[in-house]
């Protein structure tokens, strides 16, 4: 069909965490420019299943850019060539007919490959868990706006809370650092009065967990911010640094 794409795909295939992986090359034809990147992989997998081959394993869930599952490193960039999108929001019109597309999983020692393009991102869950609880009153929900919060702080906290934990920051970082993720999770609570009570211990515990999981340090290249599908700012990393060092010097 006219306007449709014929593409060469170089996809990372790896049976499991124990075996070494390698690239396999596939040809796909008649790909509609209106398809999402994941739908293009669906087309390929359909064919592989019909031919009795093992389909390409990849993470996906909502397919509308809010779950953060579709981790694919496409042509040297997390979630492909467009800014502010996840792989499911990347459409095939962003590619040219006859193009060769290289698809790799997130590469980080803290994100071991489970199969093909699927990586284990449970390290992120453990960083969040290390943050612990916040102290709030139980019982009936209190009135809305009972607790006055500065509008700018509320906006910044909301912007930090937009993080979907996809791991593109780690994938993009030359050090596989999780600073943008961790700083967003610290910031969303540090900016609000509800988060103040445990602020110091939270910053220390989450940074300690982040280091233990084997993520790298920050070189301030800004690659994470540029590749984040939710536009999380590296101002959050500076805030994490402030939170962490003030906790270092003031905590008992």
């Amino acid at each position, binding site marked *: 069909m006219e306007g449709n794409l014929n593409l060469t795909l170089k996809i990372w295939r790896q049976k499991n965490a124990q075996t070494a992986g390698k690239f396999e090359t596939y040809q796909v034809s008649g790909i509609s420019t209106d398809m999402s990147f994941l739908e293009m992989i669906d087309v390929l997998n359909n064919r592989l299943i019909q031919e009795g081959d093992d389909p390409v394993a990849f993470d996906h869930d909502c397919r509308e850019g809010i779950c953060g599952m579709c981790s694919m490193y496409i042509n*040297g960039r997390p979630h492909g060539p467009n800014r502010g999108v996840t792989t499911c929001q990347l459409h095939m019109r962003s590619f040219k007919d006859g193009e060769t597309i290289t698809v790799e999983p997130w590469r980080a020692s803290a994100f071991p490959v489970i199969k093909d393009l699927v990586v284990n991102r449970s390290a992120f869950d453990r960083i969040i868990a290390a943050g612990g609880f916040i102290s709030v009153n139980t019982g009936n929900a209190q009135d809305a706006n009972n607790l006055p919060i500065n509008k700018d702080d509320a906006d910044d906290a909301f912007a930090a809370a937009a993080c979907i934990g996809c791991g593109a920051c780690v994938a993009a970082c030359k050090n596989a650092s999780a600073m943008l993720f961790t700083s967003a999770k610290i910031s969303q609570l540090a900016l609000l009065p509800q988060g103040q009570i445990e602020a110091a211990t939270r910053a220390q515990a989450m940074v300690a967990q982040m280091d233990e999981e084997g993520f790298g340090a920050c070189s*301030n290249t800004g690659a994470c911010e540029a590749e984040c599908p939710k536009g999380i700012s590296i101002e959050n990393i500076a805030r994490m*640094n402030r939170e962490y060092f003030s906790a270092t010097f003031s905590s008992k």
Partner: protein
Amino acid sequence: MAWLAKSLNSSLGKKLLMAITGLFLISFLIVHCGLNATIFLNDGGATFNQGAEFMGTNPLIRMMEIVLFAGLLLHIFDGLRLWLDNKKKRPVAYAVVDGSANSKWYSRSMGLLGTLLLLFLIIHLKHFWYFSRLTNDLTEAHTLYNEMQIVFASPVVVAIYVLGCISLGYHLLHGFQSAFQSLGLNHPKYSPTIKWIGVVYSVVISATFASMPIAFYFHLIH
């Protein structure tokens, strides 16, 4: 003090150390560059030699010299430690990386630029620090200014110095604003100014330093 060691050995702490030592070295460069720029007064190096004499004999300055070397070594040691740590974090490399799409090449090459700077520094210290501090060759008749004239008569040396200054310029271009970010100083009101000062500082310092060997080689100063 175990709490301090623990904090400084964390990924954030290593960067804090990098930022503090980096800003210290940045402040030293202002003094070094300012003093050396007196060669452009065209007084045959009289002012420069006076300044060099003061820097070489004042006890307070000599003590700061030790602090300076300590700061430099700490910066190198911490950089090496970060580089070794960070490269372990991605055991399987990407086949394709489009780094320029999301960051500046010099921000990703601070270790390389730092290594080039270290190699340059060894040559530079041998030329002038070794001459003025560890030999008895520095006399009224053979001043540091005379030594600069001799050293910068070689086109190879001039080329090495210019390359060293280019490495320095790019290292500072990222390092200056990066240090403030590591210290947690990122604020919509001040950060644009800090970044602007960082660019001006990097260009002025590296260009001024680079102009010195060039000026000597082409006899532009007297």
